[in-house]
């Protein structure tokens, strides 16, 4: 592990030397096989992210390698909330976002600033499909470093739902009325609704179709026990028997099995849609913190950090080099080698008129 990181740090050092108007602290130049001391990189990073982004285990290695970087963290409940806070004046340096939620929006609203590709040491190792996700590159520049991804499907309790579900319509099966769950995210709910109704190309739905889906969801609201937010909630809902079938992710099923619930993950035939998340930088970063910010971005996209995500949360990863570190079993379990080459996958991409989706979902919940 040390070798990769020192190489990364050396790359940063070299890049820094090359930068014309460098700010603040620059590490001394040195040869390609890093005798650069990462502890010479100082600065403060204000990170706004989903809480898994600063999970202590996940960042332990970062804190160890860069003992002089101070990391201040704040968690967000959703991309919308982050945007709302930042536009209201909240200051942050590094911001987490998800391509299927608001990455592109953050580009457009100026919340993300363009990144210097030469300072992103792991960029060239990323899967091309990840590099090309909407919002990652924008207006000819790189705005966000993609880090992880995953699929969405149906999680079900195999002891109760004895026939494995094959379609999103199974979520609306009357025999599970009042025992189904749905995640409280506009894009997820509307995607599922659209696919169930047979709408092709749901990402580009027009307003009439959105209204159609909206009405459909309102009519079937009693199907769902509740709209859950977050891992902890969906797990406790399954375990306590409140729901037996729900939208969800593979790691949910895996975690539930460890709890003694015979939960399985199924892919819906109409399509599984994908999420992908990563980190970008705001325009407000002070020059003296720039090195630290890039250090963090490079850490997140490094094979070691990605391996952690794959092992702990079965996330898919963006850096191809991670495959060399992962066991074959893990590669198979988490589909690490084929992000977005999955069957029937709807790529992680924000809907065209996301605001309309979000507004419609608000109406569904309120009705």
């Amino acid at each position: 592990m040390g070798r990769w990181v020192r190489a990364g740090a050396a790359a940063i050092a070299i890049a820094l030397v090359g930068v014309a108007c460098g700010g603040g602290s620059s590490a001394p130049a040195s040869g390609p096989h890093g005798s650069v001391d990462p502890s010479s990189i100082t600065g403060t990073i204000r990170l706004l992210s989903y809480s898994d982004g600063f999970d202590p285990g996940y960042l332990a290695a970062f804190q160890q390698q860069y003992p002089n970087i101070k990391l201040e963290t704040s968690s967000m409940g959703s991309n919308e909330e982050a945007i709302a806070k930042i536009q209201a004046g909240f200051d942050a340096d590094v911001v987490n976002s998800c391509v299927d939620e608001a990455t592109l929006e953050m580009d457009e609203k100026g919340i993300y600033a363009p990144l210097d590709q030469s300072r992103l040491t792991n960029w060239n190792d990323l899967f091309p499909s990840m590099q090309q996700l909407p919002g990652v590159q924008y207006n000819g520049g790189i705005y966000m470093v993609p880090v992880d991804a995953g699929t969405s499907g149906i999680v079900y309790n195999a002891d109760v739902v004895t026939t494995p579900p094959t379609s999103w319509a199974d979520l609306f099966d009357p025999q599970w009325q009042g025992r189904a769950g749905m995640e409280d995210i506009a894009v997820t709910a509307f995607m599922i609704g659209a696919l169930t109704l047979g709408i092709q190309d749901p990402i580009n739905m027009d307003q009439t179709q959105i209204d159609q889906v909206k009405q459909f969801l309102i009519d079937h609201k009693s199907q769902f026990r509740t709209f859950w937010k977050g891992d902890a909630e969906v797990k406790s809902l399954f375990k306590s028997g409140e729901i037996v079938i729900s939208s969800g992710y593979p790691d949910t099923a895996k975690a539930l099995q460890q709890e003694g619930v015979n939960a399985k993950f199924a892919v819906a035939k109409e399509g599984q849609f994908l999420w992908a998340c990563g980190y970008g930088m705001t325009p407000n970063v002070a020059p003296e913190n720039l090195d630290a910010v890039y250090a963090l971005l490079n850490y997140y996209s490094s094979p070691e950090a990605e391996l952690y995500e794959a092992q702990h949360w079965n996330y898919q990863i963006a850096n191809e080099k991670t495959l060399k570190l992962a066991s074959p079993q893990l590669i198979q379990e988490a589909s690490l080698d084929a992000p977005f080459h999955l069957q029937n996958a709807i790529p992680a991409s924000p809907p065209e008129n996301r605001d309309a989706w979000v507004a419609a979902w608000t109406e569904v919940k309120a009705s």
Partner: protein
Amino acid sequence: MATADVAIAPAKRGRRSGGGRGAFGILFAPVTLLIVLFLGPMVIMAFMSILKFPPNTSSGRTLSHYTDVLTDPLNWKIAWTTLWMSTTAMIIMLAIGIPLAYYMVFRAGKWELFLLLSLVLADELAPVVKIYAWQVILGRNGIVNWVIPGPPITWLLFSPFAVIVTLAASYITYTTIPIYAAMKAIDASMFESAVDLGAGWWVQSKRLLIPLAAPGIFIAMILVYIPMLTDFVTADIVGGTGSYMMGQRVRDLILGSGDWGAGSALNLVMLVVSIVFSLLAYKLARLNRIQT
């Protein structure tokens, strides 16, 4: 302490003289703080409510948010749901809080302090954590269903019932304490006189206890009823899909759709309603005092 002196001196000569000056001295600091740190943000919020969407200053002004908000039938439906759920919870809490306060003040004797402190203690825990516990109590395989035989009762959780029960349980402390404080000021010997005159407990309650405790009851209502109208945490966690409340609506409009204009407008409307309610309750409390 100087301000307290000013407060007491005019009382000797009669209530009305020097009222304004004394009040000014005492109230200067609190009111200034309120104006700067509370009204200030409110003014900004009001400003946001008249901006066109998207909410930045170059969008131009409009009153359309208010018209949209007030004419949207969905908002009226949510308002109604919120109103009846909060009122039911309030009635339950008063039905529990008044006897509880009475017991603590007049019957508990040496246990009074213990009961009071444990009442306060029950509330110390962060609310969201306690509400999750209610899921365990009311759930399909939860404690209540475990105790009651037969097939699981599903409407206990993720339903208006769950919201009402959880709201009531969460706010009992704040309901009881102001009533308790008001009842403390009642002289117990009045009840003895009433008993000597032949009054049963119902008459005593109706004619003595409740009117005398009325200021406390009204304060409890203001303190509790209105926050319930704007509560969103409880409905989020135990409400399920069928009990959407006003607090959630405002939250979703602002944090969900980013519709600051509509969210601010709705919120200011609710503020006006709440102020009217509070003034009403305040006047009723005073009126009541004069009559006794």
